[in-house]
C-alpha cells in the first residue's frame, strides 16, 4: 500500500549560504498556504482585485536569476522567491506549518511513497497549463530531471549522494504521473521536504532546443543533448536585461510573469493572465525593490515609499512613528537555528572542547533570555537545540523544549572546579590532568588554560553586544574569551572544516549568525551540519550516537526519530546554542492583506491583496 507523504521545501543550504542566512536561504524557499484569506476580518476592510504593491528587499539582495536550475553564483536572495512565482516548483512549503506542503502553491498533488519507502509516485495537477497553452505534464518534470542529471556538477544545490544521485530510475507512468525509484529507503517527510522541493517542471515543448531558433526535440533524453540544451538555456538565463522580453521566459505556469528585471536588482512581477491554477494573483503588479543598506530602506519606509518593508533592529524605537503612518510592525521569525561551532580539531583547544562538562559550563553561561530581551529587543528567540524553537512543532524533542542547561554561573563554575580546574589570575587552569571523573579529561594537559578565541561577524551592534555579554559571563567562571570581528565572508573563510595538522585549523569558535546561522528546509534534519561527515559540520563534531540519530531522522519512518535527534543534540551540545534572531522586523501597510510571514523566508505575493 502506498502512503501519502509530507511536504517539502528546498534542500538544506550549502555552507556558502551559511550566515548569509536569510539571504541565500530565501533563494529556494517557498511560501505558504496558510495566508489570510481575502475577506478575513483579521485584516479588516474589503479585499480588492488589482492594484500594485512595493516590497523592500534586504540590503544588497540583488536578484539575478529566474531559470529553475540555479548555477553557482545565482542562489542569491529572492531568486527562488521570484522564480517560483513564474515557474511553479513541484512542491512548496510554508514554514508556518512544516508538516505538509502547501499544495496550492505547487505544481503536483501530494506524493505517494511505496510501503518500503523506496519509490515515490507523483501526479501533476490537472488544471495547470503553460502560457503557450500546453498542459503541464510529467514529461516537463522529466525534462528538468534529465537536464539536472546530465549537468549536476553545474547545479548550485547539488550535494553528492543526494538528488539526483539517489534516484535509481525515473519512469513516466502516463501524461500526468511519474515514478522515481530511490537508491534506498528514505524517510518520506525528509525526502519530500528536502529533495522533491528542488524539482520544478519546465516547458519541454518550448525549451528543449539546442540553439536560438532551433527545432524543439527530445534532446534532453541523451546526456549529450541534455548538455547542449542546458548550455543554451543557461546562456539565455544570463541575459538579465532580456528576462522581461525573451519569449523563452514568457512560457510560464505561475501566477506572475516578469514585467521588469533590472541589472541593479529591481524586479516587477505582473499578474499572469494565462495562469490556470487555483492560486491566481489578486494584485496587478508586485515590485521588489533593492536597497544598499537598511538605513536607506528605513528612509524610504519613513517616506511611505514601500508597502512592505522592514525596520532595522536598532530602529525599533520608531515603531510607533511607523505605525502612525499606516503600517503594522511584526517580527518575521526564521525557520533557523543560531549557534557558535566549537572547532573540535583545533590542536590547542580541541581536547578541551571534547569534554562535555566544559561545553555544559559554557552553555550554562549563556544568558539567552536576557540577551534576547535586552540586546535583541525581543526580536530573537532563545534556542536550545538543533531544531528551530519556533514555531513549535512535532520535531522538537522533550529535552530541547525545556532548556536542559539553564543560565547558572555558579553551577557552571562548579563544573569546572570539580573537574580539576583552578581559577588562577581569573583564568581556569588545569591542575588535575587525566580521564577520571574529577580530572580535566582525556587529552587536556596540566597547565592548560581556558583561553578561547572567537571569530565573529562584524557590522551588527546586536552581535557585538551579544559577544561582549558572552565574554563577560565566561570571564566570571574563569574562561577568557578574546573576540575578533571580521566581515561575514571572512569569518566563513576562516572557519573551514579542517584537520588538526592544517594551518586553517587555528580557529576555535566562530559566529556567523546575525541573521541566523543555518536556515533549514521544511524538515530540519541535521545531515548537512551535525553528521560526522557533513560538509558543513564546521567544527568536525563527531559522535557515533548523533550520527545514528541523524541517519535515522532521514531514513527511518519512526515518528519520534526527529525528536530523539533533537533531544540528544540539545544535551550533547555540538555547538553553543544561541538566541535565534528574527529574519526581519516587518512593516506592512495596513491596507495590504493576505500576507504570511513564512519562517522559511518564502513569499506568496499571489495571495496578497489591497483592502479599502
Amino acid at each position, binding site marked *: 500500500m502506498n502512503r501519502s507523504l509530507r511536504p517539502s521545501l528546498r534542500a538544506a543550504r550549502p555552507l556558502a549560504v551559511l550566515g548569509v542566512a536569510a539571504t541565500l536561504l530565501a533563494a529556494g524557499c517557498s511560501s505558504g498556504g496558510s495566508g489570510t484569506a481575502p475577506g478575513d476580518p483579521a485584516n479588516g476592510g474589503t479585499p480588492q482585485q488589482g492594484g500594485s504593491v512595493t516590497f523592500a528587499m534586504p540590503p544588497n539582495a540583488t536578484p539575478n536569476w529566474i531559470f529553475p536550475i540555479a548555477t553557482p553564483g545565482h542562489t542569491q536572495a529572492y531568486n527562488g522567491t521570484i522564480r517560483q512565482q513564474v515557474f511553479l516548483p513541484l512542491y512548496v512549503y510554508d514554514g508556518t506549518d512544516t508538516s505538509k506542503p502547501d499544495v496550492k502553491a505547487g505544481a503536483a498533488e501530494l506524493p505517494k511513497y511505496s510501503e518500503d519507502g523506496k519509490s515515490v509516485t507523483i501526479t501533476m495537477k490537472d488544471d495547470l497549463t503553460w502560457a503557450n497553452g500546453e498542459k503541464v505534464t510529467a514529461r516537463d518534470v522529466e525534462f528538468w530531471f534529465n537536464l539536472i542529471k546530465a549537468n549536476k556538477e553545474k547545479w548550485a544545490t547539488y550535494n553528492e549522494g543526494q538528488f539526483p544521485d539517489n534516484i535509481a530510475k525515473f519512469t513516466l507512468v502516463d501524461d500526468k504521473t511519474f515514478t522515481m525509484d530511490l537508491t534506498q529507503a528514505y524517510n518520506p517527510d525528509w525526502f519530500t521536504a528536502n529533495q522533491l522541493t528542488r524539482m520544478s517542471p519546465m516547458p519541454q515543448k518550448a525549451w528543449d532546443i539546442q540553439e536560438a531558433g532551433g527545432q524543439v526535440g527530445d534532446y534532453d533524453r541523451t546526456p549529450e543533448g541534455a548538455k547542449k540544451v542546458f548550455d543554451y538555456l543557461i546562456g539565455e538565463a544570463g541575459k538579465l536585461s532580456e528576462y522581461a522580453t525573451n519569449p523563452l521566459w514568457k512560457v510560464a505556469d505561475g501566477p506572475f510573469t516578469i514585467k521588469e528585471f533590472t541589472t541593479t536588482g529591481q524586479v516587477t512581477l505582473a499578474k499572469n493572465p494565462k495562469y490556470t491554477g487555483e492560486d491566481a494573483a489578486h494584485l496587478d503588479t508586485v515590485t521588489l525593490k533593492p536597497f544598499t543598506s537598511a538605513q536607506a530602506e528605513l528612509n524610504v519606509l519613513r517616506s511611505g515609499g514601500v508597502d512592505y518593508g522592514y525596520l532595522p533592529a536598532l530602529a525599533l*524605537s*520608531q515603531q510607533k512613528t511607523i505605525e502612525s503612518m499606516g503600517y503594522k510592525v511584526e517580527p518575521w521569525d526564521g525557520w533557523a537555528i543560531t549557534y557558535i561551532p566549537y572547532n573540535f580539531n583545533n590542536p590547542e583547544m580541541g581536547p578541551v572542547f571534547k569534554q562535555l562538562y566544559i561545553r555544559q559550563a559554557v552553555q550554562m553561561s549563556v544568558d539567552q533570555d536576557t540577551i534576547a530581551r535586552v540586546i535583541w529587543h525581543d526580536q530573537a528567540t532563545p534556542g536550545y537545540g538543533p531544531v528551530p524553537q519556533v514555531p513549535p512543532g512535532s520535531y522538537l524533542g522533550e529535552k530541547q523544549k525545556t532548556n536542559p542547561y539553564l543560565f547558572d554561573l555558579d553551577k557552571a563554575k562548579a563544573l569546572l572546579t570539580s573537574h580539576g580546574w583552578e581559577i588562577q589570575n581569573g583564568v581556569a587552569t588545569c591542575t588535575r590532568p587525566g580521564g577520571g571523573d574529577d580530572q580535566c579529561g582525556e587529552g587536556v594537559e596540566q597547565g592548560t588554560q581556558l583561553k578561547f578565541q572567537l571569530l565573529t561577524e562584524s557590522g551588527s551592534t546586536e552581535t557585538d*553586544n551579544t559577544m561582549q555579554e558572552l565574554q563577560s559571563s565566561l570571564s566570571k567562571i574563569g574562561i577568557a574569551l578574546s573576540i575578533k570581528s571580521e566581515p561575514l565572508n571572512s569569518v566563513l573563510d576562516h572557519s573551514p572544516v579542517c584537520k588538526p595538522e592544517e594551518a586553517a585549523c587555528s580557529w576555535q569558535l566562530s559566529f556567523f549568525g546575525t541573521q541566523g546561522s543555518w536556515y533549514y528546509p521544511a524538515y530540519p534534519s541535521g545531515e548537512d551540519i551535525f553528521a560526522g561527515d557533513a560538509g558543513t559540520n564546521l567544527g568536525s563534531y563527531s559522535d557515533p550516537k548523533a550520527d545514528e540519530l541523524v541517519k535515522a531522522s532521514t531514513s527511518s519512518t519512526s515518528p519520534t526519530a526527529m525528536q530523539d535527534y533533537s533531544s540528544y543534540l540539545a544535551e550533547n551540545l555540538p555547538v553553543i546554542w544561541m538566541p535565534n534572531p528574527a529574519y526581519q522586523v516587518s512593516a506592512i501597510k495596513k491596507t495590504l492583506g493576505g500576507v504570511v510571514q513564512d519562517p522559511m523566508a518564502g513569499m506568496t505575493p499571489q495571495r496578497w491583496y489591497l483592502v479599502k
Partner: protein
Amino acid sequence: MTASVPSPVVAAQPAPVVGPYRRMVRLFFANRLAVTGLVLLALLLLFCFVGPLVHPTDQIHTQLADANLAPGVKGHPLGTDDVGRDVLGRLMVGGQTSLEIGIAAGLLATLIGTVWGAVAGYTGGWLDAIMMRVVDAGIAIPALFLLLVSATIFRPTVTTQILIIGCVSWLVPARLVRAEALSLRSRDFVQAMMAMGGSHRRAVFRHIIPNAIGTVVVNATFQVADAILLVAYVSFLGLGVAPPATDWGAMLSNGISYTYDGYWWLIFPAGIAIILVVSAFNCIGDGLRDSFEVRLQGR
C-alpha cells in the same frame, strides 16, 4: 650759589641675549590658541589616565540589567551604554586607547618619514628617485583601505594598531623632510663637514635632520591628530581593538546605532572628546609652526 650737579647719565642697557629656543618658547606661549591646545591636551590626559582612579568603574563585565540608563541614574554621571557599562568610565578607558595609539602611531610615522625623507633628499640621484616613487605609490593607495585590510589580517590590539597606523602614515612627513633635505644638503655647514671627511650617516643624522626639526615637530603634531582620527575611523567601521577594550571611535560607532532612540549620552561624549583632542593637537601644531618660523621670531 648752587653747584650744578650733573645729572647722571643713564647708560643704555644692552638687550638681553635670547637664544633661539627661548624665543620659540616665548612665541609659542604668546599664541593663545596654542596654549589653549596645550592645556586642553593636559586636561584630557589627566581625565583619561588619572580619571579612573577618581571614578573607578567595571569596564570588563557587562550589566545588561543596567543597559542604556540615562545620565545621573544609579550613580552613572553620563549614563550607561547598551551593555550596562558606565559611559564616563568608558570614556576614560577609551581615551587611553585612542591617545596611546594616536600619539605612538603619530610619532612612529614621523620617525619613519623623517629618516626616509632625509636619506632620500640627502642622497639624491637614483636612490632618491626610487625612494620617492615608493612614497608616491604608497600615497596613491588610500590609508583607510590599507588599514581595513590589515585589521582583517591581524587581530587588532593596541600594539598592532600602532604599527599599522604608523606604517601607513609616514608618507607625508617623508615628502616634507625630503624637501628640507634637498635644501640643506647644499648648505655650507654640510659641505664643510663632508670636506673634513664626515660620513653620510653623520650628515643625515647630525646635520640634516636636526636642522629640519622644526618641520618634523610641527608635522608630528598633525600626524598624531590624524592618527587619532584614523583610529576612530577604523573603530567606527568595527575593526578596532577587541572588546572589552574600546576607544572613542568605537564608542561613537556604537552610539550612532542609537540615534533614533535619543540616547545622546552614547554619542556626544565620545564625539566631543575626539573633536577636542584633535583640535588640541592642531592648535599645538599651529603654535609650533609659528614658533619655528624664523620670520615671525622678530615680531
